């Protein structure tokens, strides 16, 4: 690489690599918008008490089912997205509901990811019977109808936040297990795993210290995609009345509640639906971008453009030099 033993390519400090990723993100405006939207939603839902234009629980029967942009008698701000059947400000309700929707999404991804990745590592690394048992469980799980499972579990345990997370984890862990197993099996054949065995590493150390770090980026990309999917799944459960119970609310629950007014107050369904759509879309777009950046085949093209800071189009060629 270098002409003399003394010269090595400079190591990137954490700050420098962060700047490069930042620049790459800046160049991909769609991914940037997606990230901004997700950040906005997160900040808004966390700070709902301070940031929502109205109290999400204040009822006003006089203002019930007002159309969007109806001026409010009590505040300078209008009801931007209108009000619901109890006269509560819809935007504020959506922000409050987002708290639960996102929380379910994140917790579901963390729980299902932990379970799926661990089982995938075990199956991929040990192979043989361990593999057969775990992968049969995966097949079984994937073949099982999602709604039936959800109805059974939520009937048995009763609806509630953690029970919904549990259902989602049970349904989604096989996705991680499959992906992790596949990548583990190909990594297992690499010489550095053999080298770790020769040094004397045990199975646990090899799986978590040698294999897992090399899987981190594809798993993170998958997890981002899964957040979008879980938000949608939670909406479906809540819509069916299996998810969050009043007074708690989530986006899916809001659509369910607004359904009966669809003829007269369409915004009760459309507004939360739009938030679900935009959030899921943003998570998907961000995941696509992250996949391109972390994929060694595409990465340098994305990053090289960012590093040079030029407006050169990234060329698509098969050949890498």
């Amino acid at each position, binding site marked *: 690489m270098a*002409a003399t*033993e003394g010269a090595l390519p400079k190591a990137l400090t954490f700050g420098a690599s962060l700047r490069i990723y930042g620049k790459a993100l800046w160049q991909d405006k769609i991914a940037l918008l997606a990230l901004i939207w997700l950040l906005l939603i997160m900040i808004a839902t966390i700070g709902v008490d301070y940031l929502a234009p109205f109290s999400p629980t204040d009822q006003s029967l006089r203002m019930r089912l007002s159309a969007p942009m109806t001026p409010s008698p009590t505040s300078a701000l209008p009801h931007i997205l209108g009000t619901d059947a109890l006269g509560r400000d819809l935007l504020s309700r959506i922000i409050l509901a987002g708290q639960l929707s996102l929380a379910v999404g994140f917790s579901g991804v963390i729980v299902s990811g932990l379970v799926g990745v661990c089982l995938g590592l075990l199956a991929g690394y040990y192979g043989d019977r361990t593999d057969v048992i775990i992968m049969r469980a995966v097949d079984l799980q994937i073949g099982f109808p999602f709604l039936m499972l959800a109805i059974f579990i939520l009937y048995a345990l009763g609806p509630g936040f953690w029970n919904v997370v549990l259902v989602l984890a049970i349904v989604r862990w096989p996705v991680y297990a499959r992906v992790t197993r596949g990548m583990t099996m190909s990594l297992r054949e690499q010489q550095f795993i053999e080298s770790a065995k020769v040094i004397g590493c045990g199975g646990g150390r090899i799986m978590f210290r040698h294999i897992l770090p090399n899987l981190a980026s594809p798993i993170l990309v998958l997890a981002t995609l899964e957040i979008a999917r879980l938000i949608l799944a939670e909406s479906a459960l809540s819509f069916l009345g299996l998810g969050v119970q009043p007074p708690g609310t989530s986006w899916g629950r809001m659509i369910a509640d607004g359904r009966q007014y669809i003829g007269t107050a369409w915004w009760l369904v459309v507004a939360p639906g739009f938030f679900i759509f935009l959030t899921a879309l943003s998570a998907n777009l961000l995941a696509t971008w992250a996949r391109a950046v972390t994929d060694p085949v595409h990465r340098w093209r994305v*990053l090289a453009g960012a590093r040079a800071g030029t407006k050169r189009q990234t060329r698509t*060629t*098969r*050949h890498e*030099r």
Partner: protein
Amino acid sequence: MSNLSVEFDTQEGIVKAVDDVSVSLNRGEVLAIVGESGSGKSVTSQAIIGTLPIPPGQITGGQIYFDGQNLLELAPAKRRAIAGARIAMISQDAQSALDSRFTVGYQIGEMFRHHRGWSWKKSRAAAVDLLDKVRIPNAASRVNDYPHQFSGGMQQRAVIAAAISLEPDLLIADEPTTALDVTVQAEVMRLLQDLKTELGLSMILVTHDLAQAYETADRVSVMYAGRIVEHGDRDQIFGSPAHPYTRGLFAATPRMDQGDAELMVIPGTTPNLAALPQGCAFAPRCSNRQDSCVRERPQAVTIAEGHTSACLFASDVHAFGSPFPKGALDSERVGERHDHGT
């Protein structure tokens, strides 16, 4: 070929993979291009045959004359016609050169159908002849085999058969035996040599193995960091190399006849093409380095007829004489050479 330059647009900036390279080859001759990884030897051969990936690669200067025609100025279709029929290439990886979905015979016959418009039957018969020519036993039945039914050595033979099918004038062999076992390697090289004589081929042999170059080539070009550092007849290069890099390569190659005698080591590693020093690219690793080497990029100087070296002190280096112990080059061990048995 003269003053050829090829650049690559890489992550680390524009890289000059081949810098101002000139070589020429006469009919029936074998030219060996010797170099380590990153020396530009494969890129040079790709540029000649026209398989250079563009972009990121780009030919930034120079001409490639083939029979008086500048290949780089020809229209792509015309160029392909020449490259397909008159220049052929064998690459290192026979496995990827053959398509695993078709039989070997079909793939060789394809050359005739495509280029000459022959019938199925005629092409197939020609394919059998060719397989026979590259000494695949039982050619008539093996012609219907799929590539995976062939061993590595036979796959490489089949690739050679396809390459010589249109009776090319020039054969470019890019590390043709690197992936093969020693005994198979010797047979493939022998086959190439025999074909050369038989068909009157010219050949460019790209290799990292000095001994292989010695056994096969008439003339040798040694490349380092994208440039030809030394060029000459086989006997000139091996008899009395005039570039410290060539000399260093000889000294660093373990040889069976030298037993466990100490190897001379070239310090450092092959240079990063994106960050070449200003002076001689080899200077940082050179044991004869002088101050001027670091400042000045040496141009090729002629030492003897047909023998050039890009070193500021070429004639001094040349004066060291043979890098081999006396007599090692010639058939001194004739007495020990093994007869073929009965």
